[in-house]
């Protein structure tokens, strides 16, 4: 029997086979940020250990950085201390670091790919659950906790138990008004928050193959929201074209050699997945979350569900609680719900293509009265490119606030937060209670829908403007 893509990558990284125990896997790239690393570096110091491969490690500041006045000192003293701690640790252990204001600084999952650091067949880890983003390149990429960050720093390896394999097929052709975000939200609507636990998911099918690298990153990014260990997509011409000529991509003879190897990275025709689901791409219309977990999804043109529609008592109870928290009335159209804030950003949707798509919707229009709007580019590189294309002017002319790179309102560790009961249309990845600020109400949508919503003042698709 053949192997799946993830099994091939896994097997190539076994340093020591577990034989019943977890396999010891080699890690090709370790991304580090300020929030999940300080205690790991402390652990190294306490035990007199070094970073084994600083040359395979890279760090940046993203989670907690402000997105305005970045030339000024950080006002929040605790945030400042965390940033300074990372800078000192990078210096002490010899790790390449991109600080706030550096042209390469940005969200870890945006800068890795754009610097060409994420390549097919690699293993990539980071103390952040959205590390699955890098799977878009046909890499095995997953989020880890701080103990594991310390483990990778000290050994460049991780003991990992084998995972099941899961195929997520998205067939046919996506309607023109839908995007990658709608694909992954639709998947979440089908499998729920626990459907991928214990498995590595491979996204396949004509809809996935037609996506750009940015779109593929959006899809893989949210694999953790259904509990998958990782999500990945087989590399193809789209992948190779994206990588060609990037700073860390191979060049010359090595490029040819790499290409030969990368082309072998696909699931064998006779491989069998442990789990398999199929969605018809043609049926995927623009999606939105209505509740407090990312599996609670409906079409933007749909009605808010009634708790009694759920057969499972636990789901019914969760729906009731979610509607109460979200301040929504069951059975009514979600498009009628007015919003306070629109956030375009995060490791899910802050890349150049996302900004282009949002800008094309708002061009020549004005943000609805009273709506707060933030556009936070994923990295310094994205910001520069957007400004070169004049997208910043389009956003500003419409009334959007154009910010500096960072995680920002996705998790509200910096000053960008929702107030209690404030409602957002957000291109991020989590609609958990309080995720964007205590008492805040988050609805996850695509950049197109977020942009249209900012103009309409209530949830809307661009087609309905």
């Amino acid at each position, binding site marked *: 029997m053949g192997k799946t893509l993830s099994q091939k990558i896994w097997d190539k990284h076994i340093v020591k086979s577990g034989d019943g125990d977890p396999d010891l896997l080699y890690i090709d790239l370790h991304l580090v940020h300020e929030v999940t690393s300080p205690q790991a570096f402390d652990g190294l110091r306490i035990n007199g250990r070094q970073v084994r491969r600083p040359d395979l490690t890279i760090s940046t500041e993203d989670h907690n950085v402000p997105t305005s006045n970045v030339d000024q000192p950080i006002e929040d003293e605790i945030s400042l201390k965390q940033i300074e701690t990372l800078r000192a640790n990078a210096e002490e252990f010899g790790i390449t670091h991109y600080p706030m204001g550096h042209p390469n600084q940005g969200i870890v999952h945006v800068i890795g790919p754009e610097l060409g650091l994420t390549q097919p067949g690699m293993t990539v880890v980071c103390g952040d659950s959205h590390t699955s983003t890098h799977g878009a390149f046909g890499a095995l990429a997953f989020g880890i906790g701080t103990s594991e960050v310390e483990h990778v720093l000290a050994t460049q390896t991780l003991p990992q*138990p084998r995972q099941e394999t899961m195929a997520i097929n998205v067939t046919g052709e996506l309607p023109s008004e839908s995007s990658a975000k709608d694909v992954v939200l639709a998947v979440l609507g089908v499998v729920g928050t626990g459907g991928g636990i214990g498995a590595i998911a491979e996204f396949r099918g004509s809809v996935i193959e037609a996506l750009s690298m940015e779109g593929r990153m959006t899809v893989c990014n949210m694999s953790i929201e259904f509990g998958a260990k990782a999500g990945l997509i087989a590399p193809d011409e789209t992948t190779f074209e994206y990588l060609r000529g990037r700073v860390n991509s191979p060049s010359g003879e090595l490029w040819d050699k790499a290409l030969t190897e990368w082309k072998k990275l696909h699931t064998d025709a006779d491989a069998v997945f442990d789990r398999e689901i199929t969605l018809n791409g043609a049926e995927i219309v623009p999606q939105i979350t209505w509740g407090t977990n990312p599996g609670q999804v409906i079409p933007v043109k749909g009605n808010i569900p009634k708790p009694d529609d759920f057969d499972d008592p636990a*789901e019914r109870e969760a729906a009731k609680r979610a509607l109460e928290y979200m301040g929504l009335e069951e059975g009514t159209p979600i498009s009628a719900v007015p919003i306070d804030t629109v956030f375009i950003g995060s490791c899910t949707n802050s890349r150049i293509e996302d900004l282009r798509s949002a800008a094309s919707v708002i061009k020549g229009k004005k943000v609805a009265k009273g709506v707060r709007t933030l556009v936070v580019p994923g990295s310094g590189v994205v910001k520069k490119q957007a400004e070169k294309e004049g997208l910043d002017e389009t956003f500003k002319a419409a009334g959007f606030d154009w910010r500096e790179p960072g995680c920002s309102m996705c998790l509200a560790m910096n000053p960008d937060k929702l107030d209690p009961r404030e409602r957002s249309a957000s291109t991020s990845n989590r609609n958990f209670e309080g995720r964007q600020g205590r008492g805040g109400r988050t609805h996850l949508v695509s950049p197109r829908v977020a942009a249209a919503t900012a103009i309409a003042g209530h949830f809307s698709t661009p087609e309905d403007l």
Partner: protein
Amino acid sequence: MEPVHIIQGTGVPLDRSDVDTDQIIPSDWLKRVERTGFEKGLFSEWKDNPDFILNNEVYSSASILIAGPNFGTGSSREHAVWAIQQAGFKAVISPRFGPIFRNNSMKNGLVPVEVESELGKRLLQEVLEKPFLEFVIDVERALVEVPEIDLTFAFPIDESVQERLLNGLDDIGITLSNEASISKYEEDRLAWLPTQSS
């Protein structure tokens, strides 16, 4: 990590599904660079509600958190595990755990006890009715006993994890004993893989 053999104590019923790590410890608390002091952040957005179960005096000495399915989904923050432990809990019982949270728990000696969905519901109900019900979680036998209601059940645990918990072993130390294998692997890595010079 301290060795963990037997956990004996009472439980607190947190009857909710999808308790994600943002609820366990909101992001404001993640700015700390220390490994301690997270107990005050535990469920800090729910704790203002006097009816929140963890505010109930009856359960104040509980050392086992009993929750609905999909406990610990979401963010990779190990701070969630530290907060639960520092608030006095030694084990969490749930029908299903977020995978990164589960991993983080075991690295810190917080025992995740996964149970069948129906059993999970029953345990929540039992503890709601009998707050002083005593649980014995035996890591070595991978068994939970609740003598008062004559209940014994097994829970899944990987042998390697069990061994680490029982002996309080340092994962990094174990891996470093494979130094020769790691160095050998490094010699054969593909030539084009990216490296940084700092």
